[in-house]
Structures are given as structure tokens and as C-alpha cells.
């Protein structure tokens, strides 16, 4: 019996030393066999034998750790990277198409971008690292303004800001469209992408999420047009007529400011009287236009911004916001 323990130790140690994946050796059938002996032994011998194989296991673990460390340090042989396949091996197949997926948030953002571009809005991606000026100051949030608190903003040690809303692009959009506006045109654009808030994560809160912001400026923009534009978008998005309602709200970069809700569409199992708050919106504050060099006496605009995750969660009945950034295949492969 003890012979075989020593033999196994010898054999497996050799295997470990020669292996490029030494941990696999610990799953060897030899080892399992040794454990299998244990219950067959006379009671008096079991304890000594048990200690012996435990010692063996420990030795092997150490050998594996040592080998792994050596492997980690070692340089593997170079390979011929100019070849399409390895020596003595066929050309690798692609993975099965049916296991490939696109992230549902990316699919939905593409759809939103598609609708707005068909409505004539340009679409620009939002920055993921920005400065305080674009995040707040250019949007009529004076320094120390209490409304800044509502945005639970991260900061970097370099004095930069991970944007807490896609409105961080608004000043840029206004500046970029100024010439066209003054030549009789209009500014119509959305910005979309990832935003960050210092918020503890749970099933309905995330520190990282996605927003779409819209901006429209013309010589005669008004609130009625804003309500119509938003309603058109949601009607196209849900493919049905929708009722909408609003609620006064306060955001320093709009005046007046509103929250916009739609009656929950039948497609989502909605019943009359059930409302979904969708976004914040309002007439762009004259100070924000001024800051971008646009004369608020001649031009007016409206803007809105809302989250994307919510739309996707409602659409698929997703229960937990944390799935989106989890990288779990179990989640991702539901969205072929």
C-alpha cells in the first residue's frame, strides 16, 4: 500500500514537472484511486494511510505551485505568427454562429440612433472623460450650485470629470451648429453613450449606465414642438400611438424644465393609466445658448435626456440592472 503512495507521488511529480498545465495533474485518476482505497482498509490503518495521502496531496500542490511559478517566468518558444495555423494543425474553425451575440444595450442604442437620424438629427457619441466646464459650467450650473449635488459626480485626481450626463456634449453641439443656424438652418443632434454616477450598485442602481441626449435649436423652437418631437420618437420606437404627460422639474440648463412620461405601451403589457417616466426635458436656458455664442434673443431651443437601460429592461423584462455590465455569457447569450 505505502509503496503505491510513493510510486504515485513519483509518477505525478514527474508529470507536473513536465506539464504546461500542471494543475490538471491533480485531477489524475491515480490520486482518486488512492482515496478510493481508504474505506476498504481495516479501521486501524485508515488514519495513518489518510495522513499519508494528505501529505502526498500537499506535496503535489506545492510542486504544482512551483511549476506554475516557473511557467509564469518562463518564455515559451516563439511561434510563426505569419502563418494562418500552427504546425501540424489544421486551420482553426470559427466559433459557431449560433453562439454569437450582440449586447442588448448596443442593439437598442443602434435602434435609437437609427430613429433619430431618420428624423434628421445628427448623432454624436458622448465623451467618457471630460472637464467640469462641459459637465456643469457651460450648462448654467454655477460653481457650488446645489443642483450639482443631484448628479453624484465622480472626479479624477487630474481634475477631470467622468461625465454624469450626456449633456456634457451640449455646448459642443451648439458651437458646432452655430454657423448653420445663423445661415438659416437649425441645430438638430443627439449625443449618446456611457455616463457615470457615484451611486451604490443594486438591482435598480448602477454607477455606469447609458443616456441619449437631444438638442434642437431654431428661430422658432417652442415647447409644443418639443412635446411633439418626443412623442413622435416614442411612437416610432414602440410602433403605436401613445399618450404622454409631463411634470414640472428643475434642471439649471433648461427653463422651463419638465419630466416627460408616456402611457405604458400595450406591447409592454401596459394598461391605461400606467405611466412610465422617460426623460427630463425643457427649453434650453438662455445662458446655455449664450455660453455657446448663440444669441438667445434670436434663437430658441429645446433639449432632453434619458436613460437607455430602462428601455431595454422594460422591453425584455430584465430584472437586474447589474446584468448589463456583468459580462456573463449566461445573460448575453439570451440575446442572439
Amino acid at each position: 500500500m505505502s509503496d503505491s503512495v510513493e510510486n504515485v507521488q513519483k509518477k505525478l511529480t514527474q508529470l507536473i514537472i513536465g506539464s504546461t498545465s500542471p494543475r490538471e495533474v491533480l485531477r489524475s485518476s491515480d490520486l482518486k484511486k488512492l482515496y478510493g482505497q481508504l474505506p476498504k482498509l481495516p479501521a486501524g490503518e485508515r488514519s495513518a494511510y489518510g495522513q499519508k495521502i494528505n501529505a502526498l496531496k500537499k506535496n503535489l500542490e506545492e510542486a504544482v505551485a512551483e511549476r506554475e511559478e516557473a511557467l509564469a517566468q518562463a518564455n515559451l518558444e516563439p511561434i510563426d505568427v505569419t502563418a494562418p495555423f500552427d504546425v501540424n494543425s489544421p486551420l482553426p474553425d470559427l466559433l459557431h454562429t449560433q453562439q454569437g451575440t450582440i449586447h442588448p444595450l448596443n442593439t437598442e442604442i443602434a435602434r435609437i440612433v437609427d430613429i433619430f437620424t431618420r428624423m434628421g438629427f445628427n448623432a454624436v457619441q458622448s465623451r467618457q472623460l471630460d472637464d467640469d466646464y462641459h459637465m456643469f459650467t457651460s450648462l448654467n450650473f454655477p460653481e457650488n450650485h446645489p443642483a450639482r449635488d443631484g448628479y453624484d459626480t465622480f472626479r479624477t485626481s487630474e481634475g477631470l470629470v467622468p461625465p454624469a450626463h450626456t449633456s456634457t456634449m451640449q455646448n459642443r453641439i451648439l458651437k458646432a451648429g452655430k454657423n448653420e443656424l445663423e445661415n438659416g438652418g437649425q441645430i438638430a443632434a443627439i449625443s449618446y453613450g456611457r455616463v457615470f454616477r457615484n451611486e451604490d450598485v443594486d438591482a435598480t442602481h448602477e454607477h455606469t449606465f447609458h443616456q441619449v441626449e437631444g438638442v434642437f435649436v431654431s428661430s422658432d423652437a417652442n415647447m409644443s414642438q418639443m412635446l411633439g418631437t418626443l412623442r413622435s420618437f416614442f411612437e416610432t420606437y414602440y410602433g403605436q400611438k401613445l399618450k404622454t404627460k409631463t411634470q414640472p422639474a428643475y434642471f439649471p440648463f433648461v427653463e422651463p424644465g419638465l419630466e416627460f412620461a408616456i402611457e405604458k405601451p400595450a406591447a409592454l403589457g401596459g394598461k391605461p393609466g400606467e405611466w412610465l417616466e422617460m426623460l427630463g426635458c425643457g427649453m434650453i436656458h438662455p445662458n446655455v445658448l449664450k455660453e455657446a455664442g448663440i444669441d438667445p434673443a434670436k434663437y430658441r431651443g429645446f433639449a432632453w435626456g434619458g436613460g437607455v437601460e430602462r428601455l431595454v429592461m422594460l422591453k425584455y423584462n430584465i430584472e437586474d440592472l447589474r446584468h448589463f455590465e456583468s459580462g456573463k455569457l449566461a445573460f448575453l447569450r439570451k440575446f442572439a
Partner: protein
Amino acid sequence: MIVSVNWLKQYTKINLPVDELATLVGARLVEIEGVIDLGKKYQGIIVAKVVSVENHPNADKLHVCKVDDGGKAKGVKRDSDGLVQVVCGAPNVRKGLLVAWLPPKSTVPTSFDDDEPFVLGARELRGVISNGMLASAKELAIGDSHEGILEIDVNAKPGDDFAEAYKLNDYLLDIENKSLTHRPDCFGIIGLAREIAAITNQQFKTPDWLLDTKTNIKRTPSSASPLKVSIKAPDLSSRYQAVVLSTDRAIAETPIQIQSWLARVGIKPISPIVDVTNYLMALTGQPLHAFDYDKFTKLNGGKAEVIVRAAKKGEKLKLLDGRDVILAEEDIIIANGATPVALAGAMGGSSTAIDDNTKNILLESASFNLYNLRGTQMRHGIFTDAITRFTKGQSPEQTAPVLSQAVAMLADLTDAEVASAVVEEYPGKQKSSKIKVKAEKINQILGTNLTIEDMYETLKNAEFIVEMFCGKGKTKTDDGELDIVAPYWRADIKIPEDISEEIGRINGYDEISPSLPSRSFVATGPSDLESLQQNIRSILARAGANDILSYSFVHGNLLEAVGQKTTNSFAITNAISPKLQYYRQTLTPSLLELVHPNIKAGYGEFSLFEINKTHNKVHGKDDEGLPGELEMTALVYANKKSSKSSAFYNVRSQLDFLAKCLGLLFEYTAIDKKPDYPVTAPFDYQRSAYITEKNSGVFIGIVGEYRQQVIKNLKLPNTVAGCELGTEDILKAVNLTKGTSYRPLSKYPGTTQDITVQVKQQASFAQVWNAMYDEVLKGVELEWGLEPIGVYHPHDSRVKNMTFRIYLTDHEKTITRDAASKIVDKIGQALKKKLSAKIV
């Protein structure tokens, strides 16, 4: 914030059912998060008169009472006079008292929301039947006192509904006050009542005492308590008023109605002095603070010198709640001479707290810098009702009317006399806000057709001072102008857009009919980058890979695990956890981190990819002077099973598929020296390649296996490899190349021939391929194809065999075997010459 509908009704008419009121307020002022039916708690409670009180035969402290409920309660045992027997232990129970009687089957209000509410019955107490109970203020959820039963102090008669006596058949509105941060006036009952009046189209009338901004306090001639006030920095406090009162009845009882208003909105009744300050704060939004004047002067050798100043760094103060706080320079304090006594706007100090022995009161009515107070709130975690209101920016004009009203109420309740002059400093005098706006402009902003009279009416109802004007020969509606003065409590009104908000909101934004912008309609499209990113996603998904999103912020350990320096990352100063402390420099580490958990979850072989932005300090700044954002596409392939073939080739074949779909041709070149960039850090450079797009010459990125150390650190399987590509570089290559080239199919059949060459072990595939292409195939006029079939390298051999299949098609005629062999022979010759290869 909880608001009582009945309290609002003291100031304006509300005829709507409460759910309609909540919907209307929701649509025109602020979201109502919930409506609480307060009256439910008080159902069945009856006003009763104590007719007789006898000692309990078996208990010293209990009394046996007979009460008269006007015969109201049903199913209770009554004596021959119709009276009901109740046992009561309260010391203040006495004949003739009007009390709140909880008959059997009624519920004790404080226990109403408990899991097992306390429902009364007819029970024996030490051998004597008690039908229900007589309730204390605490049991009635009105006050804190349970030392005795509540003595009804308003006009009521036996048999009355108790709830009616104190207007407790009430609804409470739970208001989402986050969206009222710009409306200090709405943090008071009167302000909210004004809004409700306006949105229900009624003229509001602010009580006279609050409209009059003069200080109306008459000093008693004999009094001369010394008092000085000094504001050290005008930006800390725009106004500070104080007065001394003296009273012998500081412990008098506050009227139950006032206690009840306070209790139902969540403020605990304490004593008349404190209750009056809280009551007026709840009404107007203006907090007051009362100091014990004698304690106050004791701290400064008998003098009362109120000083408002910035705290000194490290200065200490013991607060009313017993906490010791260490102050920061941004905190504002009230000091008497050199001694700090209160944290201004936030909380009083314990050294000057009002107590039962207080005789003289120093009453403060002031306004403080809201930005400083915001800091104080966060720094010390103080969220009192006072600071919540101060941080919305209360008007300094209202300190006077509220102080005057407080003095009047305290005189009434505690016989307090004014014992000093009203001393004040008012360095930040509020200017009234005057706005002229054309009616037309309001309609233009809102997209409405309101008449100027409608607008006038709306503003008037909300107590704006308004006048209407119009040009000569015009009517008010087509050319009218409104001249508006905002009342002092509306310091938020500054520009014509603010007026459009008032008019739009009060009349209801939902009344505006939606339209669409009038414009020349031109469809646009997603940006080139967006289109490419969407395209790459669908191509890689077709190749069986999974599109993921992962956090932009990573743990420093992850950066180190792949050999990236944390100093190259932008660092979050207020990170939620160390896991989210650094901006990721590249996408690869995020993907690598996901391999092990997915394998553990049972997935054997997969590719994960992400297309996103990355940031690092190595990369330069963009034209805005901000850190350039790098658009990246990264993929990781992993297989739980070990394989003889390097995973490099799996990734390469996925990349070749991507390139083919995009009309590109990727060329892979060996890396001869260990590179030092964030993007190359995880890769084993000897088993990795740089990728260049062959036709455009654009550099695309890196593909390869990861360093063994990285594999160990992140518990990766041995079969793992990946790539990280510049998405904008791919875009550049796509824009520079023509895309997929197509040549019409030949009418004639083609032919294939295989060729196997033996080359030295160290000869690379590219050398062989290039020799075949450069020397022969480039010059062949026929349509040709070259497909690698395999590389055979026996163990320990110094040579290896490579096999290729050559496709040849002639578009003019059927190609002959000879013609094909000629070309293949030529290739053989070229390989012999260039690489000393042997044709096998």
C-alpha cells in the same frame, strides 16, 4: 417632505378629491410620491366628558371613571345614566375633563401601522371592567407626552368625532422635494397653498403678517437686556435679526392643534418656545432659533454679543444632539464674543439649549449663505428641517415678518415680553426682481395661444405684481407687454423664460398641444465610426463571438496583473470601491477578468469582445486640450481544454474573417523587441503579431497570446489569446481601400494543383508565401488563388513541410494541365532559389 392637506386648507380652498389634487399638483408643481389617509387612524375615537372619578378598589394608581360619550358608542355596557365605565391610570384625570375616549373595537393610533395593531376591548383591570381607554397625546400620535391623558382644549362636546376636533380627518401628501430645490417658498405650507390656489385658478391671499416685511415688535419700556449683533463677513449671512424675550411660563402647554399640525408632518412637539419656531418654519420655510439668553450671556461675562463668522479650522462645538463636531473654515458659526455657541443654520449648541428653567430667550431670525450650509450639511451629516430649508436659499426679507409673528405667538402662549430692542444687520439687502416681457414671447416659447389676460390672471393668482400695457392703436393681445415684479419669496424669478415657466406650468404643460418643428426634412445617418462599430459587432457575432460591455473603471490590481502601470491611468478620487479606482487604459484587462468566471459558469470555449473608449496618460491630448479618447476594439478567445495548436491562430482566423467582411486584408508581422505600451503590456510579444492592413498600409493593432504571468494572475486557461485594435484605424483602412473586389466568374472551369515544399525549420510562412507571390503569382495573368493547406513539422526535425493548393482559371479558355503545371513548376524553382527549399 410630508404636507397636510387640512393645513393647506387653512390658507386656500381645496375642493378636489385628494387623488385629483395629487395628480394636478404632480402635473403642475411637483411629484407626489404618496398619499396617506390620516383619518383612518382616528376612526371611532370619541370626545367624552369625565363625569365621575373614583379610586380603584384594588390598585392605588388607578381610577374608575364614568364618562359621557353622548350615547355615541354602540354595543358598550352603560349604567342607568347612560354613562360608560373606563379605568384610567393618568394622574390628571378629573371630573369635568373633556377627553379622547377609545371605545372597544377602536385602535390605538400609534399602533395603527404596526404588524399587530392594538385593538381595544372591554377588559378587566384588577377586577374592574374598563370599556376601552382614555388616551394620552402619545397614544394619539399627537405629542410625546404620555404622563397624562390628553385634555381637549378646543370647543367640543361629548359624542363628537375626536378627529374632527383637531382636523385629523386629513390626508398627508408625500412630496418629492428634490425637484423643488429652486423653490424655497414651497418648503412652507403657505407657499404650497399659494401654488395650489394658482393651479386651481384661485386668487391667493398671503396672510397680512407675512406680507408686511417690516419688523413689528413693540419693546416693553422697562426692558433693557443688552444685545449686539455683528456679521463678520456679509457673504456668510445676508441678514441677522435677534431679540430677547422673557417669560415665566416657558413650560406652558402648546395648543394641541399646533402640536397636532407639527406631529402629522413629522416634527416632534417639545415646548411652546420650540414649537412656535417649528410651526412658523413649517408655515413659511423660515427657520428660527431660540437660545437660552441667560446661558448665552454667561459664556461671555454677562454680555450678549452675537457674532456671525466663519469657523476657525479645528474649532470645536458641542451640538444640541450631544455630538462634538470639529469645524471647518467653510462652516458658519454663531458666537457670543469669542465663544462659539451654534452651528449657524444647522443646529444649536448644547451650552445654550432651551430647557424647563428657561426664563429669557434670545430669538434668532436670519438667513445664511446656502453654499456654505450645503458644505456643513455634508461635512457633519446634519439633515435637520432647518438646514434643509436654508439650503434652498430663503429670502432675507421674510426674517422680519416671521420674527414678528413668533414674538406675537410667544406673547400669546407664554406671556413672553419683549426684553430688548430688535437688533439686526442686513448687509445683503434683497433687490426686487422686475421683468418686462411681451405676451407674444411667452406664446412663442411655449407654442401656445394664450391671451395676455390669461397670463395676467395666472400671475396675479400667484401674487405676482403685474401690469398690462400695449402699444398705441394695438390691442393687448397682439402687442401687449407684462410688467412684472416678483414677490420677495420668488427670488428664483429673474428672466422672461422664468415667467414663461410660471405661465406654462400653472396652466398645465399637458394643455399644450404637441406639434413638430417646421423644417426642411433631411435624414442623416449614424457617423462613420458608429456604422463601423455596429458592423464589427455583427461580423464578430457571426463569427460566434459575444459582444460585452464592462466598466470603464478598474481595480489597480487588475492593471498590475496585466503589467500596466497605475500611474498611467486617470484615477478616481471619490471611487465607490477600490475595484473602480482607475480608468482602464485598454479593454483587454476587462475582458481577461471575465474569462475565469465564465469558464467556472460552465462555458468551455468562447470569444468575448468589447468596442468602447479607453483613456490613458501615455496617449496625448486632443484639440480641445482634453485627454484623447481612444476608440478600441478588443477580443479574447479562451478554451477550457488545452490544445496543441496555439490559440493565437483561433483569434487570427476570427480577425481574417473580420477583415474579409470589411473588404480588408490583414497582414501579421512578428514583433522583434519587447514593446512598452499599455496596449502591448498583457501580450507575450514572441507569440504575438502586429497587424497592418495590407492594401492601405494602416497599422491596426496587436494580436497574440498573453504572458504566462498574466495567465497565472488571472487564472486563465492555457488556450487563450486575443487582440486589441484601434477602431479609428480600421475606419481609416476601410476609407482608404475600395472594399471587396469582384471579378466576373469565368465561363471555363479552373484547375487546382497542390505543392509541398520542405524548408528550414526557422523559415517563416510569410517568407514562403511572399516568395511564391513576388516571384511568380504577382505576374500571372490568369485568375489565381493560393490556399495554405498545412505545415508539417516532425518533432526534433530541422526542416518542415508546407503544403499549398493553387487554383488557376483562364477566362479565355479551359486551362490545360500543362499550363497549370508550368506555373507550379515556376513556383517550385523560385522557392528553391530564394529559400533553398525542396519540392516534395
